[in-house]
């Protein structure tokens, strides 16, 4: 089966306002099989949006190759665009038009037949709580509602690939949850989803594979499990003590954790190093302040991300 996305050695530079040449992408390569949810993570300026613009044929690449559903973005841009539904980073709505027109015209511009578009509109209006807003002009609506319309639009289509660039920014938590559930359902039905985000918990929850980008280069990629393996020396410990004494916090700090949070008789710490040596030190502490509960787990995506960023800089 053809991969939904194939990117090989893509490079892209642009000239900044001060005339300096900025390398936005420096030899990025990855593949996304069909039906997967793939996340692109990275700080601002990492190159995520540039990559999205290349894949959605807005920006030409300098060198390398990128293909969507087997169609080359440089040589077959129209065929690529026929396979895409894209939510770009900035809020994009037709402000002078009604919500209804926004959804319908988006569908028409993607070749969806009028009857099908009307049918999908009804279903989406209910799902995205837009039913009472359909006749409102978009410019009168809040930023969050505009974002909701923008995301709802992509479900007017049944393209095999959905690209979302920071799509849930500005959405309320309930709607964000609904969108995430819908995306999971779409992936189960075989649609491929590429999303960029800075909300790492969102990526951790949604994405089956992830690439972490920084300064146009790939820092790490793989499934969450594979990424965790890259940070085996990083682990999180949760402790519940039988009581507290004045020196407990000081003794925990003496263990040199990367992160330490103490709340009453419970503590949460992130350590970098050998697990065995830490266990010995905790056993010393438990002689004075008994430990009732002890839990060790691998790093979160956020911890992996921060560790990789620190390593890179």
């Amino acid at each position, binding site marked *: 089966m053809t991969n939904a996305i194939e990117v090989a050695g893509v490079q892209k530079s642009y000239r900044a306002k001060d005339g300096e040449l900025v390398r936005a992408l420096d030899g990025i390569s990855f593949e996304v099989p069909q039906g997967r949810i793939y996340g692109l993570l990275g700080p601002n300026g990492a190159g995520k949006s540039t990559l999205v*613009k290349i894949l959605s044929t807005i920006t030409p690449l300098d060198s390398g190759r990128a293909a969507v559903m087997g169609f080359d973005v440089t040589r077959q841009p129209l065929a690529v665009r026929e396979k*895409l539904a894209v939510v*770009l980073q900035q809020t994009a709505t037709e402000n002078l038009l009604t919500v209804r027109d926004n959804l319908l015209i988006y569908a028409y511009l993607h070749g969806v037949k009028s009857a099908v578009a009307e049918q999908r509109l009804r279903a989406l209006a209910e799902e995205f709580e837009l039913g009472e807003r359909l006749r409102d002009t978009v410019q009168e609506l809040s930023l969050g509602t505009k974002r909701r319309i923008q995301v709802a639009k992509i479900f007017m289509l049944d393209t095999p690939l959905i690209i979302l660039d920071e799509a849930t920014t500005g959405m309320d938590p309930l709607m964000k949850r609904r969108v995430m559930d819908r995306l999971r359902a779409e992936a189960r039905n075989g649609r491929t989803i590429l999303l960029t985000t800075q909300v790492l918990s969102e990526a951790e929850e949604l994405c089956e594979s992830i690439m972490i980008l920084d300064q146009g280069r790939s820092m790490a990629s793989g499934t969450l499990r594979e990424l965790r393996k890259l940070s085996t020396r990083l682990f999180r410990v949760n402790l519940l003590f039988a009581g507290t004494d004045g020196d407990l916090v000081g003794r925990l700090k003496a263990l040199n954790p990367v992160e330490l949070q103490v709340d009453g008789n419970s503590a949460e710490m992130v350590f970098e190093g050998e697990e065995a040596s830490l266990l010995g030190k905790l056993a010393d502490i438990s002689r004075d302040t008994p430990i009732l509960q002890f839990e060790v787990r691998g790093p979160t995506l956020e911890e992996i991300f921060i560790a990789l960023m620190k390593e890179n800089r």
Partner: protein
Amino acid sequence: MSGIAAVFYRDYRQRMTNIGFVFWDLFVPLAYLLLFGLGFERMLGGSIAIAGENFGYIEFLLPGVLGMVTFSVAMNTSWGFFMDKDSGIFYELLTYPITRLQLLVGKISFNLLLAVIGSMLAIILGVVGMNASIRWSLLPLTAAIVVTATAGWFFLFSVFAIKLARMDSFNTLLSATYILLMFLSSMFYPLSDLPIWFRLPAYINPMTWQVDLLRFSLLGVGSAMPLLLEGAAVLVFALVCLALAVRALNRAD
């Protein structure tokens, strides 16, 4: 719905939500004809001779007013790209499964209809309200010139709208272009009596070509060879501007 039809429908819906735009496109040229035309006709008193024939100033001005219609419609339509940029939808449009050519042609299509309606209103006002005498037999040619010229101007202004980041820069550029192209042409006065330094740039101004062609189709004045050349030049101008606009959209990142 095909790509062009969908873009046509989008522009129709947008235009209908803002009657101010439509009013500007349709009625401002009429106001020019009414106020400017009447004022100058009274001031000049007599008639204007073109190629050995005499015409009233309103008859002389009428083709220029049609030129103004094409210019206004093209300006306002290209300004739509700034509205798209402002609402953030401009880049999203570039991800839709339509070619850049379809986007441009679809966007101007509905507005070509407006330009033709605006031109017809100007002709009706000139003939019925101001006693201008025109040749009706070449009305389809008049419509064809209006369509080609509106499209050409729109494609040219779209290049500016796509390339410029700031709306104030775009507005300044367009205002300057508007003044320069209108007054440095045969729109308001015959070029034959003007000094050579004025005539030379006016002869290479597409507005002059367009107004000369409209003057032929409405009044029947002009010589065959220069008119054929001007006709070809208007067509080439529109096609070159279309190519430039497509290129600008392809490099819009």
